[in-house]
């Protein structure tokens, strides 16, 4: 969800808010990758993630007139996706665990670092508690700073920082343990 094409986004947004279906479809195409990636890494389940992401866009369509700008849209999509994912994990805790197979298939393109390390990191992130997982995803997938993460998740900045610190310690520890065991 980058704000590089702000002007294009604003144009699409105003046309979609005016009821132009094609413009709304283009907005979906523009943001679906980011929304789906957040959902799939929160839920570790492709079908659940697609369903949740679709619900987010249906909700967006209902609330289009309340969206003021493209940056507001990006913020709104992240916030609603994360809130819905955390709510779903609370209601259906079975999605909190993920198999290594599932985590490994949710891979990224253009890998430069060790693919095994990336797979291991994704599995470990999926095992973090949902709020900590949300913080790590917003930091490293969406490239938000702690203040923006706090605003998105309605969480004090110090809590965001402590989640990040503890999660990175857990990840480092687990990766090191695995390396040492080899």
């Amino acid at each position, binding site marked *: 969800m980058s704000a590089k094409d702000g002007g294009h986004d604003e144009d699409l947004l105003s046309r979609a808010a005016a009821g132009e*279906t094609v413009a*709304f*479809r283009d907005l*979906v*195409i523009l943001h*679906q*990758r*980011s929304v*789906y*990636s957040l959902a*799939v*890494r929160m839920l570790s389940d*492709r079908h659940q*993630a*697609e369903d949740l*992401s*679709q619900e987010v*866009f*249906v909700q967006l*369509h*209902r609330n289009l007139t309340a969206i003021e700008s493209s940056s507001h849209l990006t913020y709104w999509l992240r916030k609603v996706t994360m809130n819905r994912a955390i709510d779903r994990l609370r209601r259906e805790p079975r999605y909190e665990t993920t198999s290594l197979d599932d985590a490994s298939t*949710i*891979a*990224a*393109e*253009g*890998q*430069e*670092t*060790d693919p095994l*390390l*990336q*797979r291991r*990191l*994704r599995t470990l*992130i999926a095992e973090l508690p949902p709020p900590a997982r949300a913080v*790590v*995803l917003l930091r*490293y*997938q969406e*490239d938000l700073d702690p203040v923006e993460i706090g605003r998105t998740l309605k969480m004090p900045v110090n809590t965001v920082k402590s989640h*990040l610190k503890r999660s*990175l310690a857990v*990840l*480092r520890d687990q*990766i090191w343990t695995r390396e040492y065991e080899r």
Partner: protein
Amino acid sequence: MSDELDKPLREALRPVDPGSTFTDTVMTRIVTDKRSRLDPARPDDSRPAGRWIHATPWRWVSGAAVAIVLAALLVHTQQVRHTREGLAARQALMQALQVTARSLEVAKRAVSDSHGPDSGV
């Protein structure tokens, strides 16, 4: 922040695409959602408490017909009860008048006997 994990984390968490039918499914769900919000007669399972408001017109008509029939039955029952009570009262009055007439007859006879030729007056 952890520098040695920064790059691997960013690469591990690169965005991924949803399935190829994702956008079409979103648009279909939006049409369905819009239709269910525009058509209040359509039953909506998400609003069970307010579902009766969205009942179809024939349900309202049949409900009103049942209410009218029940009201007519109630009025008829009360009329029958009043008629029966009136008849019983009339019968009681007739009996009372007959008893009074018989008593008057007895009294008249007693008076005429006391003023007769053998009375010695």
